[in-house]
């Protein structure tokens, strides 16, 4: 029932008022130093009383946690956000397999905002109890574990789990009733396939490797994409120009970071109509994605400040804001 999100959507409307606008982002860019930028964030309520105010990473992590905490307060069944949360869950699996095989335990590399946190994931992988994982993770977890223990090939382990993530996202999108989640899942998978093609071109990977890494989606023909990647960047751009990712092709012609920016901006464009929807889960999804986009943009700005990049160079990399 659409009515069950009325409270949450209204609350999110109030929360959206504190999202950074393009003007606020400009003010952050205009800060003279890295320290001044961090101070700007603290003055805008970022971080909490326990956060070290000199540690920007900690501040950004607190903001991510705050976002999920407020959503958890409002929504009983968090599985509706699986499409967004699955990459974090699969990251925990990846980190657990590598940690167990390497024999070093580092709790800081796990996400806690997912169904299986780091501690539990480590236990599952340690005992090879893959049946304790959700069904969409079991096969890929076992395959990745075997690959890691027998060959020690961390890259192949990543490929197996990343493909598992993409397939799980598509499966979750099929189950999702909200059109926004379906559109987000499709874009996420298609963009991941394009990134795999570009990376494979740069590292001269084979057709077999790409087929193993790419997940089939509705808006791209991965066979044509992989063949184009074998021929060269021009062929990738030519193929993408024929798809709905034509704008991305233009960005890709400039640079990989321009393409990444185009991907994020496309997601913001997809979610923008949710500002006028009051009854479905869509505005909550939009708020989460807008908040994650905001945190990513702030991270880019801080990183630019830390590395002494000029304002113009930072401005080229920042994403469009939702509000």
């Amino acid at each position, binding site marked *: 029932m659409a009515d069950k999100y*009325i409270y*949450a959507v*209204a609350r*999110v*409307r*109030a929360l959206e008022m504190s999202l950074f606008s393009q003007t606020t982002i400009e003010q952050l860019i205009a800060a003279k130093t890295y320290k001044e930028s961090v101070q700007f964030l603290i003055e805008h309520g970022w971080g909490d009383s326990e956060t070290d105010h000199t540690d920007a990473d900690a501040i950004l992590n607190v903001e991510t946690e705050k976002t999920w905490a407020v959503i958890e307060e409002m929504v009983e069944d968090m599985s509706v956000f699986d499409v967004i949360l699955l990459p974090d869950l699969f990251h925990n699996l990846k980190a657990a397999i590598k940690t167990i095989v390497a024999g070093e335990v580092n709790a800081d590399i796990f996400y806690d905002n997912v169904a299986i946190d780091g501690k539990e994931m480590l236990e599952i992988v340690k005992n090879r109890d893959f049946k304790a994982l959700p069904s969409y993770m079991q096969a890929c977890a076992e395959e990745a574990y075997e690959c890691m223990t027998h060959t020690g090939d961390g890259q192949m382990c990543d490929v197996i789990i990343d493909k598992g993530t993409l397939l799980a996202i598509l499966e979750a999108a099929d189950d999702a009733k909200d059109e926004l989640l379906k559109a987000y899942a499709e874009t996420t998978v298609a963009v991941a396939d394009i990134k795999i093609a570009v990376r494979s071109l740069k590292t001269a990977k084979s057709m077999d490797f790409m087929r193993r890494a790419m997940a089939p989606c509705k808006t791209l023909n991965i066979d044509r994409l992989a063949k184009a990647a074998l021929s060269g960047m021009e062929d990738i751009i030519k193929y993408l120009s024929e798809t709905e990712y034509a704008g991305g092709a233009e960005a890709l012609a400039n640079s990989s970071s321009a393409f990444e920016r185009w991907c994020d901006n496309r997601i913001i464009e997809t979610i923008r109509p949710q500002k006028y929807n*009051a*009854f479905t889960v869509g505005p909550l999804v939009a708020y989460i994605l807008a908040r994650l986009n905001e945190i990513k943009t702030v991270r880019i700005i801080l990183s630019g400040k830390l590395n002494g990049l000029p304002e113009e160079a930072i401005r080229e990399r920042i994403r469009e804001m939702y509000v």
Partner: protein
Amino acid sequence: MTMGTVLALTGAALAVILAGMGSAYGVGVAGQAASGVVSEDPSKFAKVLIMQLLPGTQGIYGLLVGFIALSKIGLLSGNPAELSTQTGLMILAACLPIAIVGLVSGRHQGKTAVSAIGIIVKKPDQFGKAMLFPAMVETYAILALLVSILAVNGVPV
């Protein structure tokens, strides 16, 4: 008590029940949205409360028609009239406009109030304009109320 009285009483009950259900739903959903806003921004309490109250009128209209119908058949004064089946059916029919329109308009006004609360959150200075949207729905509840009152009063008992 005759079949006519039973039918007239059913009409009064439907006016109160259906219009009340419409208002309960409308006030309920608008209240959920209002709570969501106030939990983040308590300063908007008064404005969102007014929005929440707007769909409450259908229930009052239903109650009014119910009272008029009960008064007409003499149940309020303790001297129930001996109504023919035909008269009872006429009173039942006269109560239906506010019963049905109250139910439907209450629901729609509630949903419009939820959307208008979204405007108040973003642009509190546009409160007047935001209130107009759910208020437009009220027009049809008032039209139904007028017809029901005129019809109930017009039935010869």
